[in-house]
């Protein structure tokens, strides 16, 4: 069963969380420095799996200093007192989501050693918990509201070095974590919209791309997969959908493995470099030239599971080894190919003792890395029988995801001893409660009343964050339905026809709404005018002057006379109406035309 939860991270529009730097991004790099991070042992004397994997990459981190970063971001000075404005916003958000608010805030260190934090940990505190928000599909539980530091911005990454900029590090973030109760990709998207609206309604959050990011926790058979850092709302639904498919594939793969029951205890890593001395595969040839080794394993009973119509387990394995710096693998379900010929495949099969139901995998890498990669793969292959493996994945632009690292354990959380606990009093909470913005439902009702539009229309205005845009034109022309129709239907329809609607700026719309207000044109003329404007850069209002009633009656009389015999449709009036509107070119009101035509037709029928 599909079950998903969301973690939404929203940047706040305040100073940084633990210093007085402002929180704008900057391209003015003043200097840089280099660091390494080492995994630390947990209280159990064990290293966190995610942290250990990062350190396997043996990376160095270069940090760029900007004017809005100081010694705190450089990890050269202890954090200052927490930014109270940010804390108050977090309390406000907790109240909005009906959370219990803690009596004393304790900041924690969440170990993250991918370099995105100079300290090697992210400071985070739980402010509210056990809340909920109402949605059209029921109550959605809000497990926690946390206040935390934004990570540094990754600028570049190449062989063993990642470059980060400190401007973004330390911006306050609010993390909203929902319960794992979302039952479809649509609900996931909807929940993200509703929570996003609530956060924006505080008017204290940053806007624009990257200022809000969603993590998705998706499970279909119990094990949790986290997709980290989705910044575009449109992608959420797609990602949820693809991940659902991927998990379904892994579950059916596990069933197939159970059925086949292959002996996976023994998978030896064998050096097969010599087979490829004369190979035509460029990748392998170049690797061998560098001194890399070609390593292979037999995967018993896995034929057709690595790549076929139903299974794509090879892709999972390739993503896994890419993380530790091995660019890819070759496997038996796709060979011969990529310059590897049949003779080489046969030789491989012989050397690796590949039977008719078996698969094999090879890779080219330096010996140490290659062996490590193989061991990772062997582990993963053995775990395939468990179905979905818990892991952290990253989104790609097309909505698919890729493997990033194992899911971090809960042992990566330690107290931040440099930040004293902060008491939250009832007085503080009550003061903040008085500033609560309207809820989503309240806002919809308010907007629909204010502009005389339907709730559905109000919802669309809120979801697309268009209230300011809408109210600007409404203030010129007080007919909410018409303003809505032009902004949310007509313009998108014109865009669908392939016209460049970006040319329609505020000024053009202002002129149109003024003309509407002054009665110089009718709303029916607007699509024509907009198209003319896009194509010819002019707004010939004079051509769309509303017809006088008498003229209109004569015009319609003529239309009816010319067409009434030809029409076979049972909906005679409708057909006449269509012809008339097309010929009227926006110069008459639709309802008016409709009633005149009806009168004429009824008159005829009476005769």
């Amino acid at each position: 069963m599909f079950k998903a939860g969301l973690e939404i991270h929203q940047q706040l529009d305040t100073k940084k969380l633990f210093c007085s730097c402002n929180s704008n991004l900057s391209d003015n790099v003043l200097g840089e420095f280099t660091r390494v991070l080492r995994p630390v042992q947990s209280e159990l004397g064990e290293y966190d799996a995610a942290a250990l994997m990062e350190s396997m990459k043996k990376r160095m981190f270069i940090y760029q200093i900007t004017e809005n970063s100081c010694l705190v971001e450089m990890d050269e000075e202890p954090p200052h007192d927490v930014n109270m404005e940010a804390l108050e916003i977090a309390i406000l958000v907790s109240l909005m989501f009906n959370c219990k608010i803690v009596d004393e805030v304790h900041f924690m260190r969440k170990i993250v050693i991918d370099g995105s934090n100079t300290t090697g940990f992210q400071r985070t505190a739980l402010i509210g918990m056990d809340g909920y928000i109402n949605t059209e599909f029921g109550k959605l539980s809000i497990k926690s509201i946390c206040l935390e530091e934004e990570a540094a911005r990754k600028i570049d990454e190449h062989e063993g070095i990642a470059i980060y900029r400190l401007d973004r590090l330390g911006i306050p973030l609010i993390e909203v974590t929902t319960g794992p109760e979302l039952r479809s990709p649509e609900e996931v998207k909807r929940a993200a919209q509703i929570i996003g609206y609530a956060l924006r309604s505080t008017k204290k959050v940053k806007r624009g791309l990257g200022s809000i990011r969603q993590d998705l926790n998706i499970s279909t058979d119990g094990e949790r997969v986290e997709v980290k850092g989705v910044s575009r709302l449109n992608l959420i639904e797609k990602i949820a959908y693809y991940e659902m498919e991927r998990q379904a594939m892994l579950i059916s793969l596990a069933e197939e493995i159970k059925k086949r029951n292959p002996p996976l205890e023994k998978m030896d890593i064998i050096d097969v470099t010599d087979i490829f001395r004369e190979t035509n595969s460029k990748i392998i040839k170049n690797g061998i030239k560098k001194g890399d080794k070609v390593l292979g394993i037999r995967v018993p009973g896995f034929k057709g599971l690595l790549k076929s119509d139903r299974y794509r387990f090879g892709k999972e394995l390739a993503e896994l080894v890419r993380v530790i710096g091995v660019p890819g693998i070759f496997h038996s379900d796709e060979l011969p190919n990529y310059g590897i010929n049949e003779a080489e495949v046969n030789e491989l099969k012989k050397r690796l003792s590949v039977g008719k139901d078996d698969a094999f995998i090879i890779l080219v890498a330096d010996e140490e890395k290659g062996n490590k990669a193989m061991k990772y793969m062997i582990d993963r292959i053995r775990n395939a029988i468990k179905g979905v493996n818990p892991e952290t994945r990253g989104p790609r632009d097309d909505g698919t995801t890729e493997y990033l690292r194992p899911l971090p354990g809960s042992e990566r959380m330690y107290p931040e001893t440099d930040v004293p606990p902060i008491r939250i009093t009832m007085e503080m909470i009550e003061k903040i409660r008085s500033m609560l913005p309207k809820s989503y439902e309240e806002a919809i009702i308010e907007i629909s009343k204010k502009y005389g539009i339907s709730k559905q229309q109000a919802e669309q205005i809120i979801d697309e964050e268009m209230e300011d845009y809408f109210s600007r034109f409404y203030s010129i022309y007080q007919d909410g339905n018409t303003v809505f129709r032009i902004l949310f239907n007509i313009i998108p329809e014109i865009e669908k026809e392939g016209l460049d609607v970006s040319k329609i700026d505020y000024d053009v719309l202002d002129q149109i709404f003024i003309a509407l207000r002054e009665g110089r044109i009718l709303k029916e003329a607007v699509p024509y005018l907009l198209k003319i404007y896009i194509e010819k850069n002019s707004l010939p209002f004079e051509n769309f002057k509303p017809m006088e009633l008498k003229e209109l009656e004569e015009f319609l009389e003529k239309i009816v006379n010319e067409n009434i015999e030809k029409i076979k449709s049972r909906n005679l009036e409708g057909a006449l109406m269509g012809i008339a509107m097309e010929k009227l070119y926006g110069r008459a009101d639709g309802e008016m035309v409709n009633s005149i035509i009806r009168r004429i037709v009824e008159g005829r029928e009476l005769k």
Partner: protein
Amino acid sequence: MDFEPGDLVEIKTKKGVFRGIMMPKHAFSGEDIIILKLENGYNIGIKMEDDTEIRVISKRTSRETHREIKRKVDGIGVSVLGTGGTIASYVDYTTGAVKPAISQEELLLAIPEIEDKYNIKSRIIFSILSENMKVEHWKIIAKETFKEFDESKGVIIPHGTDTMAYTASALAFMLQNLPSPVILVGAQRSSDRPSSDAYLNLISSLKLVDTDLGEVVISMHGSTSDTYIHVHRGVRARKMHTSRRDAFRSINDRPIAIIGNDVVFTNTYKKRSGPAVLRTDMDEKVALIYYYPNMDPEIVYDIGSRMHGLIIAGTGLGHVSEDIIPVIKDLKSKGVFVGITSQCLYGAVNLNVYSTGREMILAGAIPLKDMLPEVAYVKLMWVLANHPGEEEERMLENMVGEFSERRVGIEYV
């Protein structure tokens, strides 16, 4: 009901029910607050009221771990003597407080790699924050270090950074003719942090064991980057920043060495000799005072008259206001040694340039060249105890590189 930190408890308050592991109190926590670690790893504080109910779900389970140190018997002998400080501090995962290492295993937790190459002999002589160091501690460190010379090619002393330069100076005078280097290593970020500087400082310091260096030195980051460390002569080093990794600077001197991948000596240094001479006597009746405008001469007299020696950190070239000069004269006549250093730290004192300086000299003050005030303070204690009656002559004798006769342009950075 009885409950204690470590227990899994359920707390019922007006706000609702909270469940988690009870944590010990934080020093700055409210009196009425109980700290819980929730299942998701977060700690939160909950206010206790009269009607609050606490129920223990299960008692604490101890989960101690032991980590054995492997000794590579045929490796190079290195002694590690723990004294406390950030470098040997860890978060106590139950309490969340930073606590000092209590075992030799913990001491070396930051650098498990060294077990492969060196035959490490480590022990903790005491564990204190360096602001609590006293003369008696310097003596203990000197004696314990002296014991290690037989077996070890180098002695590494993890130490708090606040007073590390004082300890280094004390050791430099107490332990002479060194058969192996004595290396004080500190950290500005504790070893339980992924970004700790302890690792680079320690692992680089070990490389000195393979050289012919025979001095007391301080090894710390050379820049904010994790790329190289500076090896400072103990008597020339000073903590110049409250928090940066590269807090230590060699003053009026260049660092002895830079260690990146390899040791590169950047200054002259004393080679290993031996046998070591141990002289730990100290006359603790020495004070160090910092002159400031409007300083009450009586304060100088009150302090100075209770001492056998007084070091003044004067302004600029070494000056004090003219109303203090008679006090210097008084003290001198009582047999109190008055040595002059400068608050500028960089550059030498010179009391010949201005009339105030000349008056100070006439009153009996002894200008101490470009010696750091703290070094002069430690040296005077040692000189008074080990060379009584020769204070002036010995204070102006360059014993372990504590001052220089010439200063070159590139040293002031």
